[in-house]
């Protein structure tokens, strides 16, 4: 990982053109060859970037004062041209292999809690297993309903369209398994976006809104009638 802080302007030449005027910026050059240019705001999304594979050519400026770095994409030939006026910081660090992102705590906990209280989905539900493996990744929960039919459950904190898509892919695969067939889908989330609900309903997937607090057994101290 090479970190450069420099006053630079950036021109992108490719399928579209974009220009970043001269200003101080952070340039990240990562071990996989990717280059990204960041401003001093927002936690993600660089101002401009080039995905690997790409090559970087560093050359002095025509009048010798600064430098021009040209990042060329290996396949498409698109170019990111950094005109550097002044370098304030330049350092490289070996980070090694990243252990990967831990699954969101709440989502994992929701899965655990729902597996424990599987009858939240309906009377007579029984758990088959959590993280049921399929060729394209594990299904959060596989269970049976009161009639013994298989139900695949996808759990999200916020239920969005991509969660429904994910469940649809799992269902397609699971329904090829004659020992499980027919498999019905349940999309369970703390909050389900209306668009996701429409898509799920249209695909015959039922939606369940989960109450994390209730599943955890933490009662609020507000008095209730029942």
């Amino acid at each position, binding site marked *: 990982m090479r970190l450069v802080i420099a006053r630079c302007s950036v021109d992108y030449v490719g399928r579209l053109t974009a220009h970043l005027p001269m200003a101080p910026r952070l340039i990240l050059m990562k071990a996989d060859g990717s280059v990204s240019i960041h401003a001093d705001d927002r936690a993600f999304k660089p101002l401009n970037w080039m995905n690997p594979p790409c090559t970087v050519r560093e050359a002095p400026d025509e009048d010798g004062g600064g430098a021009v770095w040209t990042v060329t994409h290996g396949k498409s030939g698109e170019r990111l041209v950094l005109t550097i006026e002044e370098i304030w910081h330049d350092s490289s660090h070996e980070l090694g292999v990243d252990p990967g992102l831990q699954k969101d705590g709440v989502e994992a906990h929701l899965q655990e809690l729902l597996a424990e209280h599987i009858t939240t989905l309906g009377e007579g539900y029984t758990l088959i297993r959590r993280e049921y493996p399929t060729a394209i990744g594990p299904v959060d929960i596989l269970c049976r309903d009161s009639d013994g039919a298989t139900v695949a459950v996808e759990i999200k904190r916020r239920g969005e369209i991509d969660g429904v898509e994910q469940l649809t892919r799992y269902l397609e695969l699971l329904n090829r398994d004659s020992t499980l067939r027919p498999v019905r889908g349940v999309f369970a989330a703390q909050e389900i976006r209306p668009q996701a609900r*429409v898509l799920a309903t249209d695909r015959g997937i039922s939606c369940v809104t989960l109450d994390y607090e209730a599943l955890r057994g933490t009662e609020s101290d507000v008095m209730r009638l029942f």
Partner: protein
Amino acid sequence: MKFRVERDVLADAVAWTARTLPVRPSVPVLAGMLLDAGEDDGRQRLRLSSFDYEVSAQVSVDIDVDEPGRTLVSGRLLAEIVRNLPPQAVEISTDGAKVVVSCGSAKFTLLTLPVEDYPTLPAMPELTGSVLSDAFAAAVSQVAVAAGRDDTLPMLTGVRVEIEGETVTLASTDRYRLAVRELTWTPQDPGVSAVALVPAKTLADTAKSLTSGAQVSIALSTAGSGEGMIGFEGGGRRTTTRLLDGDFPKYRALLPDSFNSVAEVQKSEFVEAVKRVSLVAERNTPLRLAFSDGRLVLEAGAGDEAQAVEVLDASLEGDDIQIAFNSTFLVDGLNAIESDIARLQFTTSTKPAIITGKPVDDGASDYRYLIMPVRLSS
């Protein structure tokens, strides 16, 4: 298809039908409104329909038919157009794959949707009985206010309808309050006994919109005929909705039958005072009420926060009581009672209180609003 209709008649009918158009139709034809012009019972009628697989709506109005026919057009667009037409007769006709709406000097051409793809509306279940439309709308609005809005407990988002002979009981609760209303109606079969859980929002909208006729007919599907549906019909409008599943809580057991204190307060003064005093109550902080001989002290806010206090005249029988409520829930209950004088019945400051109107002849009130108090700190 070609027909003429009065602008106001059409505007009312289209606006009413458009209410049930789905916001996000999963199939494009569901965004359509079905226009069906023809003879119905020997009269020239236009039938407008909309359907989103949950709720269906159909209205029938008198028109002059030149050429009978059926067509499907974008419901929202038609509703917008008709609402803005000048007050003159409207002529609607089909022209190939287009529909032409002309009124005075204005003329609109709309694209049609494939009418053969439009789903068949569910048939109305068999008539169960009928009720005066104004009384029904009032009763539903009194009860629906207490229904839950939280999707995690779907059965609490409904109004429970219990039919027992000539009595209909409506109930709903969101676990913090419970509203129960009894009303009489005219059943088809005097020995009828049935229950249903109807989505509260749909029921409230429906009851309010069916007051143009004197009576509302209610049709509840029985176990044998088309499971899980209720239909309402009145003043040429009919609507069906799917029922909710799930066990409604056994609410009758929640209603206390003995009390330690009974207070009576002028309703409008009370509502205004609650609204005023709760201005300083931050979200979820309680409004405190102290009833003692002849007066009611309302207080909100504490410690370093802003505070408010107001004193009202009130009659009290029984023990003095200090109790705190969520002010929104209290106002909902007070606004729902029909009498000018609110009667509040208390057991203790941690047990639910009942709000009713003061009964005219000291009989039992047909509306009860049970409200859970909020714990008083310290």
